């Protein structure tokens, strides 16, 4: 070791010895020099006591037991590590789930400022990046066909629901989000003219306040429409479906953040109001069951979809994260056999992230969006039933660049949740499950929600939608197609090394209809 260095082992030994010696020194100084020294006596006495506690009493932390109070410095500095990394040390491209470049694109769109970038992309142009193929002869804007998608038209429903923008706010419940965030999103959705999914949070009291179009989600616990045994209460569903704002019903089978597992609402976030809207107890984590009680196999699942369609009278979609394409294939076959189709299928990629989930589920379960979406689209095309329903996609589709890939892989419209959270001002503090969101989005704490102004935030939501739609149109025009519907996998450049490469040669998926 060089002559000038810090040996933390020796430093800690020195401090452990110095503390009691200092106490005695200050005690004597207080006695013989001036009584004011006793302020130091007391302070160092307390530090000594804490140190003794670390070294000899507690047995939870080996580091503190070996080195005492100096080791506390490690925990102190480590505790602000996430902030320091985000503020200073992480590069623009290395953060997860969204790096700084991706986040700032959303912020710029939400603030309605130019999001052009200069001097080249910071993406890796390696062998796995999928790109959109532009045409030598781009479409002119006048040639583009205005977007329109009608859910329920296949069944000839009178309540069929038409959207005119291909982007919707994905399922986030009141409970997961605070009321300010829910209302800002709902008002923004109304301003932008898009639909919003209520999430599985029970009666959508705050979602309903702003008068935007809603998709009511039925989770596995059926919050808001459950009876005491946890089965569907037809009467409650009928009543909710009768509301003007509620345009569609979505049955959630699984979710990208935690496929194969029910939702989890940490007890810290359960206020009295939430317990009433959902019909659950306070003071306990609420764990939704992993599957709907009615649905134990493909037969009962399809029957349940039919039942919800009949009771609600609205377009009914289903949402799942794909585990095995074979199971999806079997389910679709069952739909064919029973001649019952949901009005849409929403494929959630395993990269989905809103919602508290065990880390192993967040990280390791379910198929990522693009291969999952392509598989589902291919299955539907193969069975010749692609025209019986609509296909939605979700999973990090926060920017137009990624969304257009989903459209080319078969999606008719896309959902985003975190994109909209970012548009509200989310700084990716990663505390959604702790009720401590510093921006006030995923918290029930009024003090933290205070800063989230519904009025200004809703305008940002609108800006985000409009600017994203604008970029999406530009991309579409560049591709030389006239509508999102015309896009296919042939519009994509998929490198040979990509897991999606085999799809390019699979001619089952050359057309959506």
């Amino acid at each position: 070791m060089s002559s000038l260095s810090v040996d933390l082992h020796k430093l800690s030994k020195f401090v452990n010895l110095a503390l009691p010696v200092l106490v005695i020194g200050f005690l004597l100084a207080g006695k013989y020099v001036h009584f004011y020294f006793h302020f130091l006596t007391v302070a160092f006495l307390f530090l000594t006591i804490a140190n003794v506690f670390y070294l000899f009493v507690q047995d939870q932390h080996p580091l503190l037991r070996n080195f005492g109070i100096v080791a506390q410095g490690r925990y102190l500095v480590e505790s602000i590590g996430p902030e320091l990394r985000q503020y200073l040390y992480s590069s623009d491209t290395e953060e997860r789930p969204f790096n700084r470049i991706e986040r700032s694109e959303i912020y710029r769109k939400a603030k309605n400022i130019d999001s052009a970038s200069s001097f080249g992309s910071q993406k890796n142009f390696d062998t796995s990046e999928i790109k959109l193929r532009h045409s030598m002869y781009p479409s002119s804007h006048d040639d583009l066909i205005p977007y329109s998608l009608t859910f329920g038209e296949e069944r000839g429903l009178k309540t069929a629901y038409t959207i005119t923008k291909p982007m919707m706010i994905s399922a986030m419940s009141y409970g997961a989000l605070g009321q300010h965030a829910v209302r800002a999103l709902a008002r923004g959705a109304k301003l932008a003219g898009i639909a919003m999914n209520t999430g599985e949070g029970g009666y959508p009291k705050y979602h309903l306040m702003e008068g935007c179009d809603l998709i009511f989600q039925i989770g596995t616990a059926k919050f808001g429409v459950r009876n005491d045994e946890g089965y569907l209460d037809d009467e409650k569903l009928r009543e909710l479906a009768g509301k003007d704002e509620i345009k569609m019903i979505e049955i959630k089978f699984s979710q990208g953040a935690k496929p194969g597992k029910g939702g989890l609402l940490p007890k810290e976030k359960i206020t009295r109001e939430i317990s009433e809207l959902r019909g659950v107890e306070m003071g306990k984590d609420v764990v939704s069951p992993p599957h709907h009680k009615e649905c134990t196999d493909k037969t009962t699942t399809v029957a349940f979809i039919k039942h919800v369609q009949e009771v609600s009278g609205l377009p009914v979609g289903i949402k799942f994260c794909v585990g095995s394409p074979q199971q999806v294939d079997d389910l679709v076959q069952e739909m064919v056999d029973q001649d019952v189709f949901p009005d849409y299928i929403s494929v959630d990629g395993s990269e989905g992230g809103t919602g508290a989930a065990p880390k192993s589920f967040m990280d390791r379960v379910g198929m990522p969006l693009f291969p999952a979406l392509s598989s589902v689209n291919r299955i539907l095309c193969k069975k010749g039933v692609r025209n019986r329903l609509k296909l939605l996609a979700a999973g990090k589709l926060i920017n137009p660049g990624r969304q257009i890939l989903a459209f080319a892989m078969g999606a008719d419209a896309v959902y985003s949740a975190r994109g909209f959270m970012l548009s509200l001002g989310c700084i990716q503090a990663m505390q959604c499950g702790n009720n401590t969101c510093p921006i006030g989005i995923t918290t029930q704490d009024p003090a933290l929600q205070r800063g989230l102004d519904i009025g200004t935030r809703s305008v940002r939501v609108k800006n985000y939608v409009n600017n994203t739609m604008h970029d999406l149109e530009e991309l579409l025009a560049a591709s030389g197609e006239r509508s999102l519907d015309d896009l296919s996998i042939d519009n994509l450049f998929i490198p040979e090394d990509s897991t999606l490469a085999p799809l390019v040669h699979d001619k089952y998926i050359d057309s959506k209809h």
Partner: protein
Amino acid sequence: MKILSWILRIVAAAILAQTLFFKFTGHPDSVAIFTAIGMEPGGRILIGVLELIAAVLLLFPGTVAFGAILSMGVMTGAIVGHFTDIGFADGLLSLFVLALVVWICSAAVLVIHRRQIPIIRQMFAKSKY
């Protein structure tokens, strides 16, 4: 436990608060004590302010542990003072006993609210990881 905590906090805060009157009005007894330890008059006011803060912190649920630590600190100083400079003569013994009572109450409060102690909180907290 909650009731016990409140009783201890109120006892400690009440004793702390009642001495403030003597300190802030410059009662001769109080002046005599602080003269004995050479802190008159600034130290008398300073200690009074610290005691006031301690009493207030003890009563607010969010700051109990901080109040208890501060109050223990000031009382430790007082106890040391009795042994080194002030002594126990005449009415001084009762003041010493009061200081001891506040110290013990604060210590008990600190034990009850040990999860709030900033520096060793993590030893008692329910671990998240």
